[in-house]
């Protein structure tokens, strides 16, 4: 079943939006969504790696021998992750410190390897580019949505460009539970439940 070019891009935004529809790559989702800024930063970094690795894997798909393909994909992905790491250290150092080990861990994010294996190794360059971009933007959207919920309930503020904006006013008692580890699991579980409710029609 051939999808149109547009569908290749938009499927990542709803039909296969990670991590809700494709339950992959949960670790960064849970870990960096303490604040919206972190969520967006992680999303953009992952999108960059996804797009670049998808394009490279797709253009090399006829050269890479089938037996060692996973190892090749991992090296390609690791290269782009190193690029992101170095660029962030140079230009966005505070964000790099906040995301910590989760930037190098994009290497083992199953979404990236999953798209290389399931999509880019079988499709042309342009389609792979759109697929990577779509899935990446979908991932960024999910991360920001989850981060917004957690930050709002956990602190009562939303931080954008390092300036906190009070949403609930000074009398709000924050649920500090939401910005800690347990809140991450519960919030993601409930959002998944909400997606199931909405998506069912």
């Amino acid at each position, binding site marked *: 079943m051939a999808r149109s070019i547009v569908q290749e891009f938009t499927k990542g935004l709803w039909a296969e939006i990670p991590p809700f529809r494709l*339950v*992959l*790559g*949960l*670790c960064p989702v*849970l*870990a960096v969504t303490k604040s919206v800024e972190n969520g967006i930063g992680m999303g953009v970094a992952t999108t960059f790696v996804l797009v670049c690795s998808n394009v490279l894997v797709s253009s090399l798909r006829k050269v890479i021998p089938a037996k060692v393909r*996973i*190892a090749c994909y*991992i*090296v390609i992905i*690791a*290269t782009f*992750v*190193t690029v992101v*790491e*170095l660029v962030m250290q140079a230009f966005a150092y505070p964000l790099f410190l906040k995301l*910590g*080990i989760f930037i*190098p*861990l994009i*290497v*083992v*994010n*199953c979404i990236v*390897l999953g798209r290389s294996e399931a999509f880019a190794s079988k499709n042309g360059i342009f389609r792979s580019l759109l697929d990577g971009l779509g899935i990446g933007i979908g991932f960024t959207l999910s991360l920001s949505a989850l981060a917004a919920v957690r930050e709002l309930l956990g602190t009562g503020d939303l931080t954008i460009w390092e300036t906190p904006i009070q949403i609930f006013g000074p009398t709000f008692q924050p649920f500090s*539970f939401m910005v*800690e*580890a*347990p*809140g*991450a*699991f*519960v919030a*993601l*579980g*409930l959002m*998944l*439940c*909400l997606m*199931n*409710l909405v998506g*069912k029609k």
Partner: protein
Amino acid sequence: MGDLIVLAISCILINNILLAQYLGNCPFLGTSKKMETAVGMAMAVVFVLVMAGVITWITNTYFLQKLGLEYLRTVAFILVIASLVQFVEMFLKKSIPALYAGLGIFLPLITTNCAVMGVCLININEEYNFLQALVASFSYAVGFGLALILFAGVRERILLARVPRPLQDTSIALVTAGILSLTFFAFKGMV
């Protein structure tokens, strides 16, 4: 010695890799539906994580730092882990077939388990010495196994319960993991 025991306790309980550090959650949700698979995964992780922790520590200290190649850490570590997993798989298949059959498909999956890569990076970032890195890797792996097996026990009970339809499967599993994480949260401040 006392320091090492404190380190071990904090890695197993307080900074539990699954429930407090959010690493390795894909296999946590993927293999916890049945007790059997959970035990298999836990064993495979203990086995590989200790070896990977030690080998990446050696790689980092004696090769990357000596040669000033720290920026290649991500690429080097993932290659070391991937080849280690492959090697362990071949070795077990030949010499300990019983263990190989027990670990089965969980071995290859470990390459993309971020707990392994994560612990290797934590060992470096915290600047542990060799002995500390060894103890930390082992304790993190034990903590992973502990949380995974506890969680599998809970999930087997959930199968018998009536769950509202939208919450079924992954959704209820995540909420349950949240509650489990809350219990581990209580260990904070113990050390």
